[in-house]
């Protein structure tokens, strides 16, 4: 019979064993970083040498790494191995300047797949399961990340990608899909279409597990999804900077996501003081990679706000448990799995003299779909309705190209939106996903 664990030797380590392994890997990682000029310079500036890392707590001596560092060293400036050893590149869309690039060696990809496989095994999936990955592919790491992980576990894996719900439902029925990975709003959408088609997920499918992530959602939303589909839905955490999905995942206890501490050092810090906060208190998630070859990241500021729930678990895994994300310490919006910065909206509006640069983004949930509405002020009068219509269409189109999903555009009166000076409210989030 199968074990309960995919990597029993590391999943069931005691706390002290985990910490000993982390120290060993941290020292190795810091030494490895010295292969790269960016890190050598950064270490020299802070007066740190790899030999200063004597205990796990010494991780706090290391400088933080930020998204800006990744942008500044675009494209390959933070690579710590010869480029010939890199086999994969993932890149962000490049929001306010250079995109961020993450490189992987063969081993990095294998370790990434291992984390995903470990997660899926943890929630009961085995090689005889059928895994349908209804997530975007391409640069979005939720696609290939889950693909490789599910294959590593040994499941029949269907790269269904996002969209085309009728085809998704046909796959689920015809191929005997037992597990789906998708963003939560897409699961809801899928259910709506099932209902229209007279498909009852309990009666007509073999589904037993849902993996949901990449989009903020509340506990109520999760429960609603579980009730609709009649199966458990497990929260997944990933970010492309760390590899993608795999970093953290809920076990059957559904009491926080286990972050794999053989792969990462997890810190929660006060985003202002950058000092650690006590367990249970909300702060910014900071991650240090411990197994990465191509692009190790030291104390990477994720900007995600969350808290530590505990370090032990009835499931037998003593890897740290992290709460669902509670928000951001910057102004990034996560909508339908897409990361959006308000500055991107601003950048596009600047190109249109017909509208002002003040704007208001409102996020709502309608029919279980998250929507973005951008309100902009009409600057110039016109006698022509066609011009106004063309203006809002063109805005919608260009914003859509920039942020990768088409928002609604609402033209409003001049002077009716908050002004751009000071701390104007730019984003009104009515999705209530952060509870």
């Amino acid at each position, binding site marked *: 019979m199968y074990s309960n664990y995919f990597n029993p030797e590391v999943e069931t380590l005691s706390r002290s064993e985990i910490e000993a392994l982390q120290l060993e890997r941290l020292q190795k990682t810091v030494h490895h970083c010295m292969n790269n000029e960016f890190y050598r310079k950064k270490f020299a500036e802070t007066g740190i040498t790899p030999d200063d890392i004597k205990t796990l707590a010494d991780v706090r001596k290391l400088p933080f790494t930020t998204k800006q560092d990744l942008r500044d060293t675009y494209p390959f400036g933070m690579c710590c191995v010869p480029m010939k050893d890199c086999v994969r590149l993932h890149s962000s869309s490049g929001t306010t300047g250079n995109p961020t690039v993450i490189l992987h060696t063969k081993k990095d990809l294998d370790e990434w797949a291992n984390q995903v496989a470990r997660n899926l095994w943890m929630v009961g999936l085995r090689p005889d399961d059928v895994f349908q990955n209804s997530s975007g592919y391409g640069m979005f790491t939720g696609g290939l990340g889950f693909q490789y992980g599910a294959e590593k576990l040994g499941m029949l894996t269907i790269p269904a990608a996002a969209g085309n719900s009728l085809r998704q439902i046909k796959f689920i029925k015809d191929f005997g899909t037992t597990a789906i990975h998708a963003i939560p709003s897409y699961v809801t959408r899928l259910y709506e279409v099932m209902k229209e088609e007279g498909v009852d997920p309990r009666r007509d499918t073999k589904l037993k597990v849902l993996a949901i992530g990449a989009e903020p959602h509340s506990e109520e939303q999760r429960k609603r999804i579980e009730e609709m589909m009649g199966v458990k839905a497990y929260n997944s955490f990933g970010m492309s900077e760390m590899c993608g999905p795999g970093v953290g995942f809920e076990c059957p206890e559904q009491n926080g996501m286990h972050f794999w501490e053989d792969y990462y050092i997890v810190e929660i810090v006060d985003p202002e003081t950058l000092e650690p906060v006590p367990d249970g208190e909300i702060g910014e998630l900071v991650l240090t990679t411990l197994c990465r070859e191509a692009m190790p990241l030291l104390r990477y500021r994720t900007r995600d706000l969350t808290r530590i729930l505990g370090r032990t678990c009835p499931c037998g895994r003593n890897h740290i448990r992290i709460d669902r994300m509670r928000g951001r310490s910057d102004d990034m919006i996560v909508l339908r799995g897409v990361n959006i910065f308000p500055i991107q909206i601003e950048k596009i509006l600047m190109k249109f003299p017909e509208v002002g640069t003040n704007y208001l983004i409102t996020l709502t949930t309608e029919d279980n779909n998250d929507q973005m509405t951008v309100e902009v*002020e*009409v*600057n*110039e*009068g*016109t*006698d022509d*309705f066609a011009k*106004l219509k063309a203006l809002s269409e063109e805005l919608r189109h260009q914003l859509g190209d920039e942020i990768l999903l088409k928002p609604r555009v*609402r*033209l*409003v*009166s*001049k*002077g*009716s939106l908050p002004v751009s000076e000071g701390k104007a409210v730019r984003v009104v989030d009515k999705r209530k996903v952060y509870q």
Partner: protein
Amino acid sequence: MTIPQLSIFIENRSGTLIKVLDALKEANIQIVASTIADTAEYGIYRLICSEPMRACEELKKANVAVALSDVFAIEIDDQPGRAAEAVKLFSEAGISITYMYSFLLRGKGVLIFRTDDGEKAAKVIKDNNLKSIDEAALALWA
């Protein structure tokens, strides 16, 4: 042949129209005729007024999105059928009327309209000796 008209962007929200009217009141501008065309989210408030240039400046100062444009204004007798006769001349010439509104002034009817072909429309007015109103005439009324 044409008179200046103000076109103002009006969002469908309470308070937006009064902002415009208050600004005109402050500037002591007399409205001669006005109309609002609406869509689901916004409308265009079109108006003919005294001192249109100054009105436009004052509205801009009050942070109102306003444009000045020229529209045709023709005078017709205040009797049944006169508007039909006038419009027929344009339709027979293959000209579309984009929008039109009308009002009564000193016992005469006035049609304000925009067409899809200004040059052709001007020729129709000239050829048929329609009585058009210009800014000077407008200034006398207001």
